[in-house]
């Protein structure tokens, strides 16, 4: 790859949720800005812009990434997945994860939600049997100012059960007693 100069925009192409996309970016443009402003995929939310809040978390080549801590030009040729890719039928129905967030009040304002969803999606793919403690630790990389996290943990555990094909149970987090997010 030749040196990309700071004062020009350069072609960046990658796969977004299975479809090829491309746009123009200065080298300094973050992936989060590229997704939102160039591609128009505004499902990824941008909070702190320095890697703390977790709202902008996406998946790059299957691994988690803060999209504010990745450059668009670094992502050229990669496979990117965002919250828009979770629905099984392009937004008509919710994925299991999203459905359980709705069922369990896993969101209020919804700003942080895309990040939580992408982290849980990756976690349950890699470790379908992750313990509540492992889920909690993994979610520590996200901030939510509405829910107090307990309902997010409930949603995550309910989604995990459904993803593993187990019958639905209510409020399993509470039934264990004493475990809070």
């Amino acid at each position, binding site marked *: 790859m030749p040196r990309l100069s700071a004062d020009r925009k350069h072609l960046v192409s990658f796969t977004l949720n299975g479809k090829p996309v491309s746009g123009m970016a200065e*080298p300094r443009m*973050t992936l989060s800005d590229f997704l939102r402003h160039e591609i128009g995929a505004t499902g990824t939310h941008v909070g702190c812009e320095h890697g703390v809040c*977790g709202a902008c978390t996406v998946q790059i080549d299957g691994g988690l990434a*803060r999209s504010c801590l*990745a450059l668009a030009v670094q992502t050229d040729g990669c496979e990117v997945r965002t919250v828009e890719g979770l629905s099984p039928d392009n937004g008509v129905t919710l994925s299991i994860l999203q459905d359980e967030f709705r069922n369990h009040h896993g969101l209020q304002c919804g700003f942080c939600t895309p990040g939580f969803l992408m982290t849980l999606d990756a976690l349950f793919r890699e470790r379908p049997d992750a313990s509540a403690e492992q889920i909690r630790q993994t979610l*520590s990389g996200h901030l939510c100012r509405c829910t107090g996290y307990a309902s997010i943990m409930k949603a995550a555990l309910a989604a995990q059960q459904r993803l593993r094909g187990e019958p639905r149970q209510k409020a399993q987090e509470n039934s264990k007693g004493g475990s809070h997010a």
Partner: protein
Amino acid sequence: MKPAPFDYLRVEHIDEALEALRKEGGDARIIAGGQSLMPMLAMRLARPKLLVDIMHVDAMRRIDDDGRTLHIGAAVRQAKLERHPGLAGRQPLLAGALAWVGHAQTRARGTICGSIAHADPSAELPLSLMTLGGSVHLRTRKKRRALAAHEFFAGMMATAKTDDEMIEAVSFPTVLPGTGYAFNEVGRRHGDFAIVACAAVVHANKAMLGIGGVADVPTVRALPLPDAPDFTDALNQYAWDLDARDDLHATARYRRDLIRQLGRRTIEEAARCRA
């Protein structure tokens, strides 16, 4: 929160990166996982004219175990080392420390060498490298040199690396017979910067206790074991010698107390784990 403009160069061979550093020196910065550098760019604490992306240099993605050290290339992500088969058996201190490095979301991108290069005084990987007595492998276009961790870390976010050098790899000594290892940390939340982090290596009746988050660089000191009569005084002296300061997260007094409590506990844990 937008970085200042810079050129971007993606290299596939280390020589291209070294040539760029030779030509541009301090105006160029290596970017690997970017999890330390990107926030610095966003806050404009760093304003390089050129970023050299080394993540596509295949030769630096390797983890090699030669029986005595784990040799970790500059493009090895933290998540890759975390999932390295048998890591906890080969170097339990490193395996223990990794769980405390940032969050799963940043470990998925961040590299081992990048954290070492950043040299944050509260970071777990520089502390682990210091405590284990590891080394940093530096390289320019013309020469290579290896520095012991204590020679490499020069101050808060400052290292002995020159502008035309890059870290090619770091090496961590692997587990030794009859030796125990442990790592502990206290932060406001899991994944936050450490208020105090402790790493301990115990062999025979001697402990090496590394402390991060207090002084400008991670420090290591030899101590007796907790059952020795002079242990409490020695650890207390260590806590005072680090010149802890008050900041937003903790008072100096709290930090000293953490060193005494967490330091003892970490040494005791390491002593119990002796193989």
